[in-house]
């Protein structure tokens, strides 16, 4: 069992539950775990690794009080960060219409503001052999220069003995084509099954094929890259897309970056007035200015001499567009640098590195002019960082970024793709799924920016932002509006009652106490459980005569399962009033739902804390020691792009303490990550 715990690679600072053996500070389990029956109890973080240093009240520059610091690293921009950055750098607005083909995806043309492509089904050709034993049948026509010679790329049909037919297909562009079949390389005949013919000029006739396409509309390029950048990889247990260690550049990335840079540069030429200092082509003086000015914004720092001359030369020789492309494929743009400069036995991030870290953390994009100006001036001490942080939190982009943070933290982005059985639940289409996701991001945004600001409200809110369809799914009379949330019934409260959560942690055709219970343990409590033993059974089949709770009964009756599942299922049972898509139900398999559960082994609560339903579960979690501490962990992970290890343990612990000091205010926690010494210093 120990090895199974280890494989999860979970960091020290997270509270690893070795089932029945208590939380594991070092990610290992002791002998005899399998037989242990005691419940894990949260013992609180250790105090090792904290030196006696403390806040420096005078200079605003707090010295690191932790003896260990996170390592220096390069952080590849995520797809979201890339897109936001180029949008902000070149003042690009999301397009809804096109003005030219350049605004359309490859192969599409702009016609009256819409991007259109002509879609053509492949053309099929077929010839009945009629019992003849031909060796070959080629297709020759105006589309392939009438070649019957295999060495010249003739198109060969293949023979199917059962049907006694030769057949094949070719992707032909729209147009009119003449063709013949060539039998055994010598015998040219028209297609006997095609009535359309034309004189072949040799006294015979050619078959004529008219290929027409269907015109389909395509969305214009938003900023030129769409989803073309490769998806991020992330280690297990790390919920965000910005893991620094996983951010590797492959040849596939390079191709995608080059394509995206090309598209962005084309789009940026439309908005040149907003960002281009002068036209550099053939103008060496302007080219230097261009390189310095645009390069500083793209690379988020002043250019080195080598960079200046490199980009200026491209700008002067090849023009602004190619120079922008070159900047956008530069490693200095693609990686956020957290390298720093030596200061004693550690490294202090440069002001420009801090400006980038601050901006990407809070608004998900590149630093703005004010931040860059202070970085240029070397003015980013802790106090200035805090002022910029508070300023940026007022930026509308911060709301979007916070919503994205919440969706990733909770793992609810998958509601957009997770399969649902529409035979059971009706249409769960893209628009309804988008509403489900929006409900969650909107609540987080509202609580953080407009509500109490407190973490607790995420779990206890008795209101939510639902549209008409979601209201119908929830059985609400009123949907509320974008600004006015709808009141929720007693049965549903906070994030735990959101369809995005309930649907993401369920199967296509049934709820899942295990997935929902694990969601609470992992995302909300930062507790990791080992994999099930090799001989664990699967999910019990849907049984029309048994409730979900009854079907999962083996998990508590079988001691081999109960060791772990006592921490999982009794939490998940609390969600049982909600089906696999988040709809409310009074009955399961014809019997009344029992949504009572227990939350075992959580600090700050009684042992085996009982509850019924998600509203009570949310309230319990809000009172627990772990849930807010876990949230601080998640914010630390997100800010640093790391699944924390021993090097981060002290910093994470201090961040959790700081969260309590600010009365669990979400935005203050983000500010605290920015002002913490670990934000500025590296090992």
């Amino acid at each position, binding site marked *: 069992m120990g*090895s*199974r715990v280890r*494989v999860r690679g979970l960091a020290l600072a997270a509270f690893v539950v070795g089932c029945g053996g208590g939380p594991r500070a070092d990610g290992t389990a002791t002998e005899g775990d399998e037989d242990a029956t005691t419940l894990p109890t949260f013992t609180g973080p250790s105090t090792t690794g904290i030196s006696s240093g403390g806040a420096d009240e005078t200079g605003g520059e707090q010295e690191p009080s932790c003896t260990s610091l996170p390592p220096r*690293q*390069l952080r590849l921009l995520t797809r979201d960060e890339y897109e936001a950055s180029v949008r902000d750098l070149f003042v690009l607005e999301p397009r809804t219409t096109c003005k030219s083909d350049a605004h359309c995806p490859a*192969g599409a043309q702009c016609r009256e503001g819409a991007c259109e492509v002509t*879609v053509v089904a*492949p053309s*099929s050709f*077929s010839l009945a052999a009629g019992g003849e034993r031909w060796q070959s049948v080629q297709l020759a026509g105006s589309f392939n220069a009438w070649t019957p010679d295999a060495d010249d*790329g003739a198109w*060969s*049909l*293949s023979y*199917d003995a*059962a*049907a006694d*037919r030769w057949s*094949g*297909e*070719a*992707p032909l562009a729209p147009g009119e084509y003449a063709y013949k079949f060539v039998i055994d390389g010598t015998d040219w005949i028209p297609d006997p099954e095609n009535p359309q013919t034309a004189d072949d000029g040799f006294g015979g006739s050619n078959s004529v094929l008219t290929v027409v396409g269907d015109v389909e509309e395509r969305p214009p390029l938003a900023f030129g890259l769409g989803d073309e950048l*490769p*998806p*991020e*990889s992330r*280690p*297990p*247990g790390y919920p965000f897309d910005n893991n620094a*260690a*996983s951010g*590797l*550049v*492959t*040849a*596939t990335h*390079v*191709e995608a970056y080059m*394509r995206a840079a090309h598209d962005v540069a084309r789009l940026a030429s439309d908005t040149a007035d907003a960002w281009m200092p002068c036209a550099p082509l053939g103008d060496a003086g302007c080219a230097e200015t261009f390189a310095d000015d645009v390069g500083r914004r793209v690379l988020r720092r002043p250019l080195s001499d*080598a*960079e200046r001359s490199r980009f200026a030369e*491209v700008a002067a020789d*090849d023009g602004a567009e190619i120079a922008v*492309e*070159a900047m956008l*494929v*530069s*490693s200095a743009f693609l*990686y956020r640098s957290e390298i720093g400069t030596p200061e004693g036995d550690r490294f202090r991030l440069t002001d420009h590195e801090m400006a980038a870290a601050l901006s990407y953390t809070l608004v998900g994009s590149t630093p703005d002019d004010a931040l860059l100006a202070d970085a240029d001036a070397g003015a980013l001490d802790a106090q200035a960082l805090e002022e910029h942080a508070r300023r940026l939190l007022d930026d509308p982009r911060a709301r979007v970024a916070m919503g994205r943070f919440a969706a990733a933290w909770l793992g609810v*982005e998958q509601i957009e*793709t*997770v*399969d649902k059985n529409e*035979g059971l639940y009706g249409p769960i289409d893209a628009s309804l799924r988008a509403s489900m996701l929006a409900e969650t991001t909107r609540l987080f945004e509202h609580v953080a920016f407009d509500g109490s600001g407190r973490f607790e409200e995420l779990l206890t809110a008795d209101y939510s932002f639902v549209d008409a369809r979601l209201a119908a799914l929830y059985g609400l009379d009123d949907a509320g509006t974008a600004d006015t949330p709808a009141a929720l019934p007693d049965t549903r409260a906070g994030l735990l009652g959101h369809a995005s959560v309930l649907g993401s942690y369920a*199967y*296509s055709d049934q709820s899942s106490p295990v997935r929902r219970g694990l969601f609470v343990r992992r995302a909300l409590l930062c507790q990791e459980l080992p*994999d099930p033993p*090799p*001989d664990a059974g*699967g999910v019990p089949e849907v049984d029309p005569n048994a409730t979900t709770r009854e079907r999962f009964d083996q998990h508590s009756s079988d001691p081999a399962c109960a060791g772990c599942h006592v921490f999982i299922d009794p939490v998940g049972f609390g969600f049982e009033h909600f089906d696999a898509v988040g709809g409310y139900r009074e009955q399961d398999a014809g019997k009344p739902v029992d949504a009572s559960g227990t939350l075992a082994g959580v600090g700050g609560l009684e042992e085996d804390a009982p509850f019924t339903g998600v509203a009570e579960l949310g309230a319990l979690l809000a009172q627990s020691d772990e849930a807010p501490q876990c949230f601080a962990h998640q914010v630390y992970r997100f800010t640093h792009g790391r699944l924390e290890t021993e090097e981060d343990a002290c910093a994470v612990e201090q961040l959790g303490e700081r969260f309590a000091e600010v009365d669990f205010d979400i935005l203050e926690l983000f500010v605290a990550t920015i002002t913490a010494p670990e934000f500025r210093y590296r090992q």
Partner: protein
Amino acid sequence: MNAFQRRLSRRRLLSGTAAGALALPFFELLTPGRSRAAEGFAQRLIVFYFPDGVVGPSQDGEASLWHATHQGGSVGLTPQLEPLAEAVDDCVFVNGLTMGPADNGSHPGGAVKLLTGVDGGQGESIDHALARTAGADAPFRHLLLGAMANQNNASGDKHISYPSAGNSLAPQDDPAAAFELLFGGNAGGGGPSEPDPRRVTVIDAALDDLSDLQSSLGSVEQAKLAAHLEALREVESRIKNVGSLPTCKDPGVAAVGDVYDPANVPAVVDAQIDLTVLAMSCGLSRVGVIQCSHHTSDLLMSRFEGTPLYDPGFDMRSHQASHYGPSHNPGSNEFAAYLEQRRFWVGRFAYLLQRLRETPDPVGGTMLENSVVLMCTEVCDGNTHQHHDMPFVLAGQAGGAMSTGRVFDGGGQRHAGMLASLATAMGESFAGYGDTNTPPLAGLLG
């Protein structure tokens, strides 16, 4: 069913959103510059992965229903392997290899060891080791295509291809995007003969930038930057040598619609197979991985229309079926579905072999004769999750390096030895592979 009918039935699944369907019969073959086949080695390696194991030895001790047997000099196939009936002579059924004790019983623990041979995935996988050696002269060193391999934001431990210790790559799940990458730029369709000066300028600048960064950082993050540099050089080579790139005439792309609709997965798998074969047939790449879904898969295989798995009234997931119970009970829904699911994956592997067999190799013979192909999954039995007696099948004659049509019994040796043997088949000499540094297995090749 003939090829044309098969295409028709497949096209029924295609949504017709892209420019056309595959036109495989009509591409032109050009001879790649280097011939390993002439030296008696494989021209290429293809790894075909499917999720969640097989029906192996049951928890109650019943014998495996997967492993092929020796039957008086010929191969005895089991029902799960039966879709390979016509390909028996092209296969080596590899029994008796173990992935070692670490994390035995775990899906993720198996997936991370599968191609790395290293516990916890803390090593480079064999596909990458060969991409940068035997495959380094190909325009695309490494192909990594998937079918719903990133379903629902799959974490990295669900992916099997490791370019470096502890870091896996996410496969490209969209055949249209993969096609664009392979054929949309430089290669395919008779591309330009002169390098695009714009792309040359941009890639040169990127190389200079990276070089600056490398020298300014010293030892920090050097592994990451070295990988980045290799990636830039690979693309640089494609840009600057565009005139000598192999040309694949008139390649099309299969339009598959929503690649995350389970109903489309059979079409996606076949499209990724077709693309891999097409790209390799004209020398664009020597090393490819096709990852179908991922371990503990939620893939609703009951929505595969036109297959025996199809059951619109019931949602059967891969992982759900894999927990078929303690015994081989044909009366169990899960067991029956699980067996059919395995047959489906083996059938797609058979399709891959068929495509390789019917495609002439530019160096002579068929592609299959000059390939080494591995079919694998991350555990043996899907219910017990053992990492022993792993269900591997090798195929292709590897340019003469591997005799086929037999069962190989590994006798409990580490599977890392098989990974080392793959290198041998590709003409590379690896003393050993994996954290056990297991040498190539005696008798596996030859």
